[in-house]
């Protein structure tokens, strides 16, 4: 470990145990920490890197990570310069998580706040059970994405796989490309001005200024299955 001349704390996971990295990130206290910038080397697909942070720090991870990177993140900005395994930013509460490459399954699962940005594609179950997080994917997403999505926005600049938004509640889904199929109770809805404004702001926050919000289609809940009626049994 070393503090470089740039003021960046460098932690090399080839020589430092993951436990030590995460403990040091957890020990960062207050709204004005002494060390704000961290750089993590040689993650080599390790799981649970930089999970459970609750501080306004910036963490750059130089390489691919395994499962649950930046899990339950609060306030931190975590950037993965590579691909991320299953459940990146799962249950994140606030802050920003950016994946430079592709994300595996369940990216942003159950997230309750903040923003997850994926520059590549995201696999199946992207935004599953999301509860307020905003997820913006530059590429495409896999099947069963936004399953039981409750709140927040899922923005997909590419295509979406089958059963998008199955059993969706009040999350907003925006897809620019093709949707292979919609899940139960998910329908296409009119893209009105307020939605274009919301989408424009999300794309800007994600740093995708070159994407035109008006090219997207909006999907959401038909709210037909909110209350369990026998006449709807066939929808499941």
């Amino acid at each position, binding site marked *: 470990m070393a503090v470089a001349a740039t003021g960046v704390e460098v932690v090399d996971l080839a020589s430092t145990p*993951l*436990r030590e990295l*995460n*403990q040091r990130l*957890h020990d960062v206290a207050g709204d004005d920490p002494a060390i704000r910038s961290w750089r993590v080397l040689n993650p080599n697909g390790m*799981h*649970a890197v930089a*999970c*459970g942070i*609750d501080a306004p720090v910036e963490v750059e991870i130089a390489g691919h990570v*395994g*499962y*649950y990177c930046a*899990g*339950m993140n*609060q306030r931190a900005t975590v950037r993965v310069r590579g691909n991320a395994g*299953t*459940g990146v930013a*799962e*249950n994140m*509460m606030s802050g920003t998580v950016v994946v430079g490459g592709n994300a595996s*399954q*369940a990216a942003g*699962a*159950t997230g*309750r706040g903040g923003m997850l940005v994926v520059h590549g594609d995201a696999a199946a*179950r992207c935004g*599953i*059970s999301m*509860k*307020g997080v905003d997820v913006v994917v530059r590429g495409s997403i896999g099947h069963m994405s936004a*399953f*039981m999505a*409750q*709140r927040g926005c899922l923005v997909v600049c590419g295509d979406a796989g089958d059963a998008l938004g199955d059993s969706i*509640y*009040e999350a907003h889904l925006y897809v620019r490309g093709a949707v292979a199929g919609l899940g139960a109770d998910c329908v296409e809805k009119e893209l009105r001005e307020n939605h274009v404004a919301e989408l424009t702001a999300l794309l800007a926050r994600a740093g995708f200024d070159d994407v035109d919000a008006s090219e997207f289609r909006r999907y959401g809940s038909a709210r037909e299955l*909110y*209350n*369990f009626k*026998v006449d709807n*049994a066939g929808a499941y």
Partner: protein
Amino acid sequence: MEPGLRESFLYDRTIIAEIQRAAREGIYDIRGFGAKRRLPHFDDLLLLGASVSRYPLEGYREKCATDVVLGTRFARKPLELKIPITIAGMSFGALSAPAKEALGRAATELGTATTTGDGGMTEEERQSSKTLVYQLLPSRYGMNPNDLRRADAIEIVVGQGAKPGGGGMLLGHKISDRVAAMRDLPQGIDQRSASRHPDWTGPDDLEIKIMELREITDWEKPVFVKVGATRTYYDVQLAVKAGADAIVVDGMQGGTAATQDVFIEHAGIPTLAATRLAVDALQELDMHREVQLIVSGGIRTGADVAKALALGADAVSIGTGVVIAMGDNSPELDEAYRELGSAAGYYDDWHAGLDPAGISTQDDRLAARLDPAVAARRVANYLRVLTLEAQTLARACGKSHVHNLEPEDLVALTVEAAAMARVPLAGTDWIPGLRG
């Protein structure tokens, strides 16, 4: 009943009523409580008190310890409990806030733990509970890292005895503004939770999930894995492999606030059978007592506690029993139950939110009927009685600690119980399936 009238065994009045109800309503029956059918249970076992061959402890004088430590395998701060009886996970939502508070107070008074549920941790619950187990369920309603850090243990719920393989359910009339806000759901919807965890799918993933939870909480908290009793032997072994500190096995008699009746009565295996399988699995891995086993599902009396411990459990957990202890199904409320089409002793509409006892409701007017201090006193009394009963039986078997009870102290009353618990049929040395 007129002489000559004969009720069908196959189509008895309960079945006839259910067929008529199904034809009328067109939807499966949803209810609370647990399995009502007769199942092999701890009642089918007996303890062998000491005599000439064994020496008893003085029943009213000699010490019989009851303490237990849960989470000794990896956690830096295991749970140290004074009694081996914990309060099972029940959600705020399923139960009213005063009921959750009462359970916390009672558990604290007795030096044991209580557990959150599918809906997150309430402030009342945290404040009233010295030792609180925080559940991580497939829905992740209310899940947040701050509550993880202020919990005393984490319980990953894979399944529940009343509905192994099924997700939670909370019908619209119990989704109050507060419940809806905690779960990020629209008010008044019929909430049907997922049955699979959103970010892991098998034992290898579970191992990584447990590791993540440990990292987030700096390896302080014990991590329990709760399974509904089905393929218990394999589930327990896989949970051990995944890194659990303790395993909760919930038999099919386990209660629920809202589940389909067909699920409650027809899925899973009895607690008795599951206990034996879980102990077998732990012993096979040489992990018995290192990974603690908590058994739940129909634990009602101190005899049930003693027998579960004798079979090898480290602790038991109780849901339905403490709900009844708080005042559910009280004869004093018989008239109110009858107005709801039920009666004291039969009431199981815990899903409906109309509970006159103020326990399984989110109606503030009804919930106000439950005084948390009074309800806590009742639950504490109940837990004391269970402990005293278990100690009484343990002393009679010559044990200075309830954990010294062992399968050799048990015999079975029925062939089924003998086969499931793998103890001999009373008066014989016959264990079906083991020795011919």
